[in-house]
């Protein structure tokens, strides 16, 4: 098995598995006549951590939302874990079971307790018994350091706590890949760190992650690869060291100039 070597932010090379978990081939998407994704080609390897950044409206959220088909693409193929997303509902179900997603607005179920939020999908999707689902839920709530809040409703928690619950809820399905759609953008500044720390912990455990985020510190220290998108296309793709010190395209330099200037 060939190993590609990439560089983590600290400069140390990190071996990346050759096993491809997600493959996007010539993916195109339009909203009416407006093209949001232009010929996207992307391979994500097992255990790889990818940060996707770019100006708003560049298509980065749309890209990851195509992976679990919250948005449908019109051309090209997307393969997740060997399953190609097509019109078969069964394929979509199989993919969604293996792909966790964390949203900007948390999207916890407000009428359920934290524990019930975590137990719902394992019980109703995987058919796990109640006792086992509860054990799984408590395990992951402990992992995001929030087990004492298990019997509260989401509305009683802070934003940072809610987002950690949302991460735990996804992990309860034991996903092969985690998608993060601007997970810290709706948080008060003092709560960003607790969520990023949780994500870093996840990365250290070998989770395959795709993160749309503006947290460049996170990109530098955690990402194996940074992808820069603009106007629906992938403009640049590089290791963080390369990306931040020696960006190749003009658009990337402009973008970095804007977000790193203060």
């Amino acid at each position: 098995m060939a190993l590609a070597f990439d560089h983590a932010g600290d400069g140390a090379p990190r071996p990346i598995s050759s096993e491809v978990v997600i493959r996007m081939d010539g993916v195109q998407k339009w909203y009416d006549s407006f093209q949001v994704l232009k010929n996207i080609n992307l391979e994500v390897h097992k255990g790889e951590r990818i940060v996707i950044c770019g100006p708003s409206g560049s298509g980065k959220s749309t890209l990851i939302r195509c992976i679990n088909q919250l948005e449908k693409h019109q051309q090209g193929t997307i393969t997740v874990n060997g399953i190609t997303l097509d019109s078969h509902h069964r394929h979509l179900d199989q993919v969604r079971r293996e792909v966790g997603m964390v949203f900007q607005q948390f999207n916890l179920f407000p009428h359920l307790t934290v524990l019930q939020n975590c137990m719902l999908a394992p019980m109703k999707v995987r058919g796990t018994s109640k006792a086992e689902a509860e054990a799984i839920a408590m395990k992951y709530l402990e992992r995001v350091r929030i087990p004492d809040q298990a019997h509260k409703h989401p509305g009683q928690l802070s934003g940072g706590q809610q987002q950690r619950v949302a991460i735990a809820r996804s992990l309860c399905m034991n996903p092969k890949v985690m998608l993060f759609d601007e997970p810290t953008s709706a948080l008060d500044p003092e709560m960003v760190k607790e969520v990023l720390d949780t994500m870093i912990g996840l990365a250290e455990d070998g989770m395959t992650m795709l993160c749309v985020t503006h947290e460049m510190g996170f990109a530098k220290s955690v990402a194996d690869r940074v992808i820069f998108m603009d106007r629906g296309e992938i403009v640049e793709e590089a290791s963080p060291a390369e990306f931040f010190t020696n960006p190749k395209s003009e658009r990337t330099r402009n973008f970095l100039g804007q977000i790193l200037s203060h």
Partner: protein
Amino acid sequence: MIRSFGYNEFLFLLSAVQWTLALSAIAFIGGATVGLFVALGRTSTIKPVRLLATGYIQLFQGTPLLMQLFLVFFGATVMGIDMNPWAAAALGLTLNASAFLGEIWRGCIQAVPRGQWEAASALGLRYPGLMRYVILPQAVKVAVPPTVGFLVQLIKSTSLAAIIGFTELTRAGQIVNNATFQPFLVFGIVAAIYFVLCWPLSLLSARLEQRYAAPAR
């Protein structure tokens, strides 16, 4: 022979209230059952289903309830089905209520934020589970006040069943009036009884609305 309005006449009106309530209950239960499917159809992602549900709602909201009762009652007779006023009133009101409840509940389902659908879908829940465990429990909270409000409308609507000969409160009023010729008194009392039935429900609806409008726990 003209009687005057007395205690017996009043008791006759009161005993007719049970038929008004029974008809309201049947129309509400029937209307709610059918209305749930109308609401689901109205919010479906499948276009023909959505159009069908929309057409159904338009049809019943765009024609007078009295015509609907006539069509059910006389239509059944034309088609050779023996339809008594009871069954015709129950069926007509059920169909009508299902259209109105379907439209009310469509709004409640759509009031659940898009992110809830997305989170449930992303977790792998399919439509039945997504609806049952995530969307409908949240929609119900929004739905309770307007649904109780609609129940008030429904109770008053049952008075139209008097015209196809179903003896409920209004028809009882007509019968008493035919014997006493005291229309102002008789129909005043009938109206007062409707008010006594409906007013507490209106109050309840307003209170529920306040309670659910309060910020979440």
